């Protein structure tokens, strides 16, 4: 394990001035949760489908001419409720056909179906409102359909897309985005968007975060923008809501050299063992906390200063991301905190050793 380490110590999402909003949230888990460094203290979207104007509320179709249905903004906990709202929208756009929309068209399929007594075409691809269409929410591919009286969604869907937005108040540099404690497993897509204004039709930054069930991460070229947004596209997630524990958006610190050989990883055993008279033992099972110990050896003053400045921002107990090799394996990035302070040793007139005795993984 070596390569290009990066320290992500300035999370602009958690900056006090940053204003967070979201497409929706649940009563006990507002978007302000993302200001907290505890990973289990998460934001959670409302259950089901949240339709937001300018985001996912349009259906372009052709039935005796190109028309657009606009679904009423709001939260629809069940597919049946959203289906009813879509019928209302279609009837408003074109009152002639007898529209029918249902959910779970096939037994247990959890798919939408859209139909009418007159043939029509869904313009998911060529419509004027493709950017704000709700095809993903309904499980349809991004392509126009042939003319028919009935279209079934291709994918099982359980929720809408969601977004979380950060207004940094003033433009600030962001070099990467990280998400942990999300509920998407290996599926779903997390996209980091950035823009100078609060308009999202074509944002300056539109970067998909790569990763897995544990972490989604991407580093980008430097951008100094005021508005940042995390778009969650996981409509097929049967949990029915989106959830994020930690969203990082901010710069990173990268020293000119990697840490030295000798990185050690250990496990702090939090479980407790009790022994009976007979010798039998009992275990109170608790998590194992990983800890890392590493140092930079024989580094120049410039790198020492870079590291010192970064570590100064994260005193003991303050969580940050440490990417062990941001270029080759960016998902080798850990969320943790310093248990004790970093030490610097002048080894010669030009070189320093910087020791990071214990970087402990943040649990819970």
């Amino acid at each position, binding site marked *: 394990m070596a390569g290009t380490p990066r320290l992500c110590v300035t999370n602009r999402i958690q900056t006090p001035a940053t204003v967070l909003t979201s497409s929706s949230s649940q*009563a*006990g*888990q*507002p978007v*302000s*949760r993302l200001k*907290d460094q*505890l*990973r*289990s*203290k*998460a934001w*959670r979207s409302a*259950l*089901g489908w949240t339709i937001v104007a300018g985001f996912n509320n349009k259906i372009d179709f052709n039935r005796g001419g190109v028309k657009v249905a606009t679904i009423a903004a709001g939260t629809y*906990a*069940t*597919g*049946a409720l959203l289906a009813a709202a879509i019928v209302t929208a279609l009837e408003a756009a074109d009152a002639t056909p007898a529209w029918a929309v249902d*959910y*779970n068209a096939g*037994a*247990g399929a*959890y798919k939408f179906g859209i139909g009418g007594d007159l043939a029509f075409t869904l313009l998911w691809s060529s419509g004027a409102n493709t950017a704000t269409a709700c095809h993903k929410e309904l499980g349809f591919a991004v392509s126009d359909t042939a003319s028919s009286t009935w279209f079934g969604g291709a994918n099982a869907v359980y929720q809408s897309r969601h977004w979380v937005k950060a207004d940094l108040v003033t433009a600030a540099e962001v070099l990467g985005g990280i998400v*942990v*404690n999300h*509920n998407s497993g290996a599926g779903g897509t997390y996209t980091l968007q950035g823009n100078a204004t609060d308009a999202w039709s074509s944002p300056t930054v539109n970067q998909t975060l790569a990763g897995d069930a*544990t*972490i989604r991460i991407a580093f980008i070229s430097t951008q100094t923008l005021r508005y940042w947004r995390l778009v969650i596209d996981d409509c097929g997630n*049967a*949990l*029915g*809501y989106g959830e994020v524990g930690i969203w990082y958006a901010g710069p990173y610190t990268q020293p000119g050299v990697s840490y030295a050989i000798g990185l050690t990883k250990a496990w702090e055993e939090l479980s*407790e063992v*009790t*022994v*009976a*008279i*007979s010798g*039998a*033992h*009992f*275990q*109170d*099972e*608790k*998590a*194992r*906390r*990983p800890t890392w110990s590493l140092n930079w050896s024989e580094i120049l003053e410039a790198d020492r200063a870079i590291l010192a400045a970064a570590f100064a921002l994260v005193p003991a*107990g303050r969580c940050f991301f440490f990417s062990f090799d941001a270029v080759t394996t960016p998902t*080798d*990035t*850990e*969320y*943790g905190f310093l248990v004790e302070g970093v030490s610097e040793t002048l080894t010669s007139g030009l070189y320093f050793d910087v020791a990071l005795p214990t970087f402990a*993984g*943040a*649990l*819970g």
Partner: protein
Amino acid sequence: MPVPASDAIASDVGHGALGIRYGLRPFRDLLSETVGQRHLWVEMRPKKLVTAWATEGGGVWSWAVSETFDGVVLDVVGVRTLTETLARVEAQALATAGKFYYSGTTLYIHLMGDAVPSATSVVVEFGVHIGTHGVVQPVLGVDRLANGSFEAWTGAAPDGWTVTSGVSAGTITVDKTTSDPLEGSYAARVTFAAATGAMRIRQDFTTLVAGQVYRFSGAYRITGAAGILAAIYIDDAGTNFVLPDGRTIGASTQVFTDTSNDGAWRRFAFDFLCPAWGTLRASLFAQVVTGTLTGTVDFDDVRLSPIYRFAYYEPLLNVDSIPTVEAARADSFWGEMSSALGSLSLLNGGGRLEPLLAAYDWLGADAIIRVGGRYQLGGNETLMDDCPVIASGKLGAPTVTDSAVSFDLEDDRKLLLRTLPTRTYNDNSGTGAYQPADRGRSRALLWGTKTGIRPVQYDIHTTGGGPVSLGSYEVADCTDWPAIGLAWMDYVYWYTDEDAALVRSAARRVAVGSTGASSIVESLPTGRFDVLHDMRPIILTDENNKLHFDIGGAVLVAAPSTTWPPYPLSGLPTYDPTSLCSEITYWMNTIAGTSDIRCIFKDVTQKVQIERDSGTLNLRCATGADVQMGIWAILGFNVTADRTGSLGYLADRVFTSPAGDQILRIDARGYGDDGAGTYTGTASAVIEKAPDIGRFILREILKVPASAINLPSFVAARTGAKPCSLYIGSPRTVSDVFSELETSGNFDFVLNGGVWYCLPRDTSTPAGTPALVDADFLSFGSHYDPEDLYGTVRLTYNDAPDSDELTEMGEVSAAAVALRHGRPDQRAFATCLRDKADATYPLSGSRLEAIAAQAQVKRRRFRFSTKGKALQVPVGGKILLTRSRGLDTTGALSSLLVRVISKRDDWTRWVSDVEAIEVV
């Protein structure tokens, strides 16, 4: 390489995602696991006095809730007034009297009797949740199912449930089973005998709220042939079904099916969004689909509860300060209970908690502590519906430092230290005592039949405008039971003097039955009565019964009989002896040969008048022979001059004496049951059995909510219980009263997991009794305690309400105890049994015999520490001990049944320190 998100709990079904989880091993089994995770969940309920109410009409008032912590508008988990604890409902439309609804932003309350909030004090309780792990958990409401525990049965039918079956072959039956129920005494069992078909056990609901999330949870157990399945349905009575995702409606679909026939209890939890159906049907289902199979499917601990919110339990609980739960009896008999709950400490990094602590009232706020866990190797966690309450109590004042906030915790058992009666006669709370000697006296409580109660005069009452006021009296305080009050007032006695009252002398009293409308007016709901006439006893002898008069001729002497019981002056209530006035009337007419002479008492003057319609009537008050033996002084006539020249003579003095000079005692039957037989099982019966009295005290006087009382255990204990007579007229602790009731009824009132139980003391081994073996003991010791042995046992019963000297008692001695053990000591046991036959004599079958059987036999005591298994055993509960070394003639213990008399549960270490005594 990345660190896992959490060591414990995922964000999935049960934690906000709707849907089904099943096949879950229950918490009960986790106690026996040698490896596993332990989780603690604490709900604290800080309070705020709210005054800014806005009317919504119809008795409903609202308050816009803007209380936040950590960016979250707090959940309102309770609303209380001085007299009410409102129940939470899921919709504003359901907020009828006594209930509240919280929309998440607005609180709606509806007080009883459409009371106005500004006329009382309304305290709102908020939910603050902390735990050992950071996780989202449901805030569960009150169970909507009837008899989901399957403890109540009528024959082979579970009360509250509808059972339907479809049988293609063989037989399928449903009945209760006592075979290791998951909780309580019974589970429901569906039995397949070479059968094909299905059995459905269901309940229908018409008041669930569309759009509200509910949790349908419970446990099932399958034994027998492979292919027998258990399932559940949620449907609208047969057409539309909630699918396993908990949100979608579809055609007939089980929420889950399980065919795991390993004979082990498994749990399910189904969180679903309630559809807009007129009827929602929740069904338990057992089926053999193919073949003819034999086996059983059991169901138990089934609940249907609203989920008001998914709340984040912040992992702030300092693991070093998780409270220990201590409870002990003073002795191995029914000595008073004591308890302690330690303290609770929260991490306070960054000073986030200070604003929260400052904003609300924490002192005395409720704290509810639940425990759960997770099985090893990725096994299931126990969901919130299966996380039992291990302690509930009140928070003490918080101590705040920069790193932590700690609270002392007061166990709910502290209510045992409260004093009964709860009210006194004083001038400031509405009921004062009229006589100075009664001021500050306790307002008595009464259960069962009690004789000789001295009522307290709380007011005056004047009959017919008479000059001397009479009294309004209270027999017992019925404030807490206002609709029913006392069952009956049998007699009101006027005694000649205090000594006569003390010994209840029938020869020196006048008895007035409770239907004596002319003498008293009673009010059973208030436990009070007004005196209309002075019924002071008049005892006639040959020395004071002569009445000299004439009707125009010779002096006549009427002599009312001296053989009657004491006379009241007047009044003819149903059960009264003939009044003195009537007697005088009779004898004057008899002696004079007339029929128009009357001796009457006049309310307006409170004097006696002797009159005649016509002719002559002279009263020889002064000149009659032997006038010194005259009755005139009793009747209020001066004996200085005869009364002549008229047809009517009013006495010179009033007869009525002030209320304070009258000596009254009451025979009454105490609190009566309501029309539903809530406490006795019989409509309007007298509440007089010890388990019923105990439950009444908990519910009505100490205001313990119904959800905190295990009704089946109290009902079961009622069987065979003997009538008691309990009058509490002077301050006693609840613990003392409970001890007396427990001694009377041979059971233990047990608070376990925030719920009160009534557990019989017998030699049975209840289902689920933990069995400890060698490997379970972290420490072990045994001994004999001399305080368990007594040469003489005395038992008291049916004590007098106004004097300890009149307590009835029995005694039994065993000389051999002194000879063998050097214990000639005597021990008295107080009971409130009413009848001698139940208490002491004949000895055979009496409580005295039963208690002596224990107190005069040496019993082993054991002290040990153990992991897990004993954590849920309360004081009074039982444990089976098996050990290769032990205090026994064999040198080992083999399934020895012991009863816990004290214990200390350390939920941090998952360890119980227990002292127990063998069951004989």
